[in-house]
């Protein structure tokens, strides 16, 4: 027994018995958000021999990767919770310092692997802000199109896994089936289903393929009936409602205090969406609604994501109408490699091509923070450049990482079975949490 304890010991990250835990740490584990306000009401006096500390994960299908939770249980009730992360940490921010700005998007795209295009987008926006270049109109609209399709794919994945976590196995099949249609379009456009490296500093890697309009519109015609099916399968279904309504409740004040963004914050009724509040690309030129909930519970977070797929489709239809002709990447020789055909006929183009892919382009000294609304919340990128071709420091503000802090609060007082529903409704992507 002792050997087992020693081998699985997480050291300082361990959830310890109450007697070994300081007051402040315990308040944290019990989900006290606003110190002073809720400090009194968090403590249920339970002696240690009545409760049990159990470990959930990291290898657990409902933890969406390698999230480990240590839970203190009193029977079926969760008293304390401590998320333990870092199992997928691969030092991507350190690695980014060793990659040129051109290679950087291949790195960031692997962080949030469920919505890679958003990661590329925020990185490219930050680099462009440092470079101070204007991206052509068509590139901006292509980026918007791709990032909305990505939001649809990501939310469909959420619906699939959320359904599966709560026992609606058919939902998993449906969600993955419909997401595949979006990924098929990505494959046609970027060559890959995931980790595209499609949005790059200066524009996008390639123009949209022939017939993209028909493909996108076909997708927009296909999905609504499927979403209605989900509604029938889940939204109105009594078991689903029982499992999600009133589970994992958070208020606006608490969500803001915990820096939570995205559907978690919106589920509390606070209409905060960076696309609307601080528009980037051309989100101020399209018409869409910010979906909010009213109770801040798991059901609201589900319903928000479901309806955001509908809103994204609305945006996509507008983009199809408004897509301008023109360049898909900036015609600035400093940033953009020469067209493929030129390389065969021009020595200078070949040299230029070689230089840009080996040395990269230099980015002026400075530091910027750019944030966009990813499907999970505020996705930020902080880049500091020292004037060379590689970022001096690249930091991604990962929404999942920050949102995970709400878990102890959401879980407190709930049942173990609800813990699964709550993890799922926070929708953490561990690649992004651990980076």
């Amino acid at each position, binding site marked *: 027994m002792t050997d087992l304890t020693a081998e699985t010991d*997480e*050291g*300082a*990250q361990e959830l310890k018995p109450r007697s070994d835990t*300081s007051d*402040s*740490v315990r*308040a*944290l584990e019990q989900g006290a*958000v*606003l*110190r002073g306000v809720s400090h009194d009401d968090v403590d249920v006096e339970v002696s240690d021999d009545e409760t049990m500390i159990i470990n959930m994960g990291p290898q657990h299908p409902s933890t969406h990767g390698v999230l480990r939770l240590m839970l203190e249980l009193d029977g079926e009730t969760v008293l304390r919770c401590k998320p333990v*992360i*870092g199992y997928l*940490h691969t*030092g991507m*921010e*350190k*690695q980014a*310092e*060793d990659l040129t700005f051109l290679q950087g998007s291949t790195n960031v795209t692997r962080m949030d692997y469920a919505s890679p295009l958003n990661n590329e987008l925020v990185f490219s926006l930050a680099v462009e*802000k*440092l470079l*101070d270049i204007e991206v052509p109109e068509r590139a901006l609209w292509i980026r918007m199109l791709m990032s909305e399709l990505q939001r649809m794919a990501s939310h469909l994945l959420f619906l699939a896994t959320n359904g599966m976590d709560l026992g609606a196995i058919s939902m998993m099949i449906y969600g993955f089936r419909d997401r595949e249609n979006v990924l098929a379009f990505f494959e046609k456009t970027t060559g890959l289903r995931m980790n595209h490296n499609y949005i790059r500093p200066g524009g996008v890697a390639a123009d949209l393929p022939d017939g993209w309009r028909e493909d996108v519109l076909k997708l927009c015609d296909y999905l609504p009936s499927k979403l209605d099916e989900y509604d029938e399968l889940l939204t109105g279904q009594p078991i689903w409602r029982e499992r999600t309504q009133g589970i994992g409740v958070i208020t606006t004040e608490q969500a*803001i*205090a*915990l*820096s*939570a*963004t995205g559907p978690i914050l919106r589920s509390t009724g606070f209409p*905060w969406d960076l696309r609307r*509040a*601080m528009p980037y690309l051309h989100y101020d030129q399209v018409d869409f609604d910010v979906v909010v909930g009213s109770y801040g519970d798991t059901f609201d977070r589900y319903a928000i994501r479901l309806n955001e797929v509908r809103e994204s489709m609305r945006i996509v239809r507008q983009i199809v109408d408004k897509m301008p002709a023109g360049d898909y990447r900036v015609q600035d020789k400093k940033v953009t490699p020469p067209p493929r055909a030129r390389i065969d006929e021009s020595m200078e183009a070949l040299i230029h091509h070689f230089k840009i892919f080996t040395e990269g382009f230099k980015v002026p*000294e*400075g*530091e*910027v*923070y750019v*944030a966009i609304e990813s499907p999970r919340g*505020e996705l*930020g990128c*902080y880049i*500091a450049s*020292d004037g060379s071709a590689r970022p*001096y*420091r690249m*930091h991604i*503000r990962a929404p999942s*990482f*920050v949102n*995970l*802090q709400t878990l102890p609060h959401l879980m407190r007082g709930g049942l173990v079975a609800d813990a699964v529903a709550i993890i799922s409704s926070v929708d953490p992507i561990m690649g992004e949490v*651990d*980076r």
Partner: protein
Amino acid sequence: MTDQDVPTAGETEVEEPALIHGAPSSLSRDQLVVHVDREKYIEIITALRDDGYAFCSDVTAIDYLLAIDRPLPVGVRAERFEVVINLLDMQEGKRIRVRAQVPEREPTLPTLFELFPGTEAMEREVYDLFGIVFEGHPDLTRILMPDDWEGHPLRKDYPIGRIPVQFKEAPGPR
């Protein structure tokens, strides 16, 4: 919390770096930045929070070991570490960035946990990867790296590549 009669953001800074709550500010690619030192760190962030920047969206750090002569406004002493706080005003939809200088000999800063509980994990990450100690933080432990890891990987004197493998029975460095 000495509230001076300085405008808080936006309008007047464009001409010349103005003072925000007594701290020099600058514009970095049109983004408002306040430079603070350790002594006034909590004071200024509290004042900014009371001004409406009630959402702390990000806490990170930079090790300026290799670029110590970076441009800074007059009156700011460059130190090796910088902790960067991104605050957000959700009513007005504007951001402000606080860059706090942290010296190498004594890399400590007071924690923001009491002001923004959401900085808990972010400060732990900075501690883990940079070794900057946040005084008063309730649970300052490693968050991404293993507990017994030596060194702080995002420091510039921490080499990339050949590191001893930390897990038992694993083959040694390549």
